[in-house]
């Protein structure tokens, strides 16, 4: 499944900025950054739960916000892409 992870992490304190970096890093392990605080991750149920658990451990629920959306298939119809950034489909042929 494709999920969308978005977050607002308070950057007012050094601890907040640290959380922000950690959240981004955690998301990268599961997917790709599509916008500044938006990640698309193709995961299975286990992956989703692991990521969610991991993120909840990092963020501070009093100051930050985390939203995880699940996108419905078929993705080609439900996800539209505009502008200069093109997401990589990790399930398409990967050739560098």
């Amino acid at each position, binding site marked *: 499944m494709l999920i969308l992870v978005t977050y607002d992490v308070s950057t007012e304190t050094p601890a907040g900025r640290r959380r922000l970096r950690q959240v981004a890093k955690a998301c990268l*392990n599961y997917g790709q950054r599509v916008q500044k605080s938006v990640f698309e991750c193709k995961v299975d149920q286990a992956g989703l739960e692991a990521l969610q658990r991991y993120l909840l451990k990092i963020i501070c629920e009093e100051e930050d916000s985390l939203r995880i959306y699940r996108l419905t298939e078929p993705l080609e119809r439900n996800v539209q892409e505009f502008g200069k950034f093109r997401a990589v489909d990790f399930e398409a042929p990967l050739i560098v």
Partner: protein
Amino acid sequence: MRQLLNTLFVTTPNAYLRLEGETLCVEVEREKRLQVPLHHIGSVVAFGDVMLTPAVLRRCAQDGRGVVLLDRNGEFSARIEGPVSGNILLRQAQHDAAGNSLTALGIARACVVGKLRNARQILLRGAREAKNTEDTQSLQQASRLLANQIRKLPEAVDLDAVRGLEGDGARIYFAAIPLLIRANQRQVFNFERRSRRPPLDRFNALISFLYTLLVNDCRSALEGVGLDPQLGFLHAVRPGRPALALDLMEEFRPIIADRLALTLINRGQLTEQNFESRVGGAVYLNEQGRKVVLTAYQQRKQEELTHPLLEQTVAIGLLPHVQARLLARTLRGEMEGYLPFLNR
């Protein structure tokens, strides 16, 4: 349903692969080209001078993610694998399939269907492009005959019958090949019938050389997915013979090798001077000729086609890898039967 993991192909010289957290980064000249979470990648295939950090190798081995090293031409060099892998099961499945006459027949038939269908495409294209109606008609006639052979394949009850249809099909196809050579080249490339060991004319020398390159690529592709390249279905097992690579190669002969041979001839990129005759009538490409062919072959592999089954564009050079994966899936029972690559 089991998820099919992706294969990362790294073909850029001097690419550098390293781990970053739970992701694999591919850097070229210190610039990050791709960052993929490890959970998407089932194996890594590196062509030529690709650097992999020890951490990448260890992590892949640990997770049972195959790492395959090929040289720049795609020839198999090494495979790095961890202690536990599905490899033995795949090989066992392959051996079981070879022992099961029905499964073996199915795969052998698919290989021949692929070969003849793709050969027929070459003839039909020739018929469309032919300069005179006589050639067009002969090519159309030959492609009708080929279509007949293809139609008979589902009824072939044993391997011998399949091999018979393949042989007849190949004969029809090769008999029509001279019509695909441009008239002003027919004197130099007077191809009559397939001859090998040794090739007796320039066209045979050319396609023999191309087939050698191609069988190497197919062999690498099979080793890459962990199949035993020596145990074939259509081709009988013989010591030292890469029978499965020859099976896999059938569908690619017309579209990769033969088509390229014809292009090189018709464009005048190869001439009489690129060949040499030896005693006993053998004809071979000389060094200059080999260079021309190798360059063209590498370029051809860069071209992209749409894979009808995957509905994705794939570089021609990667087709054997894609098909080897489909073959492995068939042998593991994840696919009902092997589906060859059919051009267009």
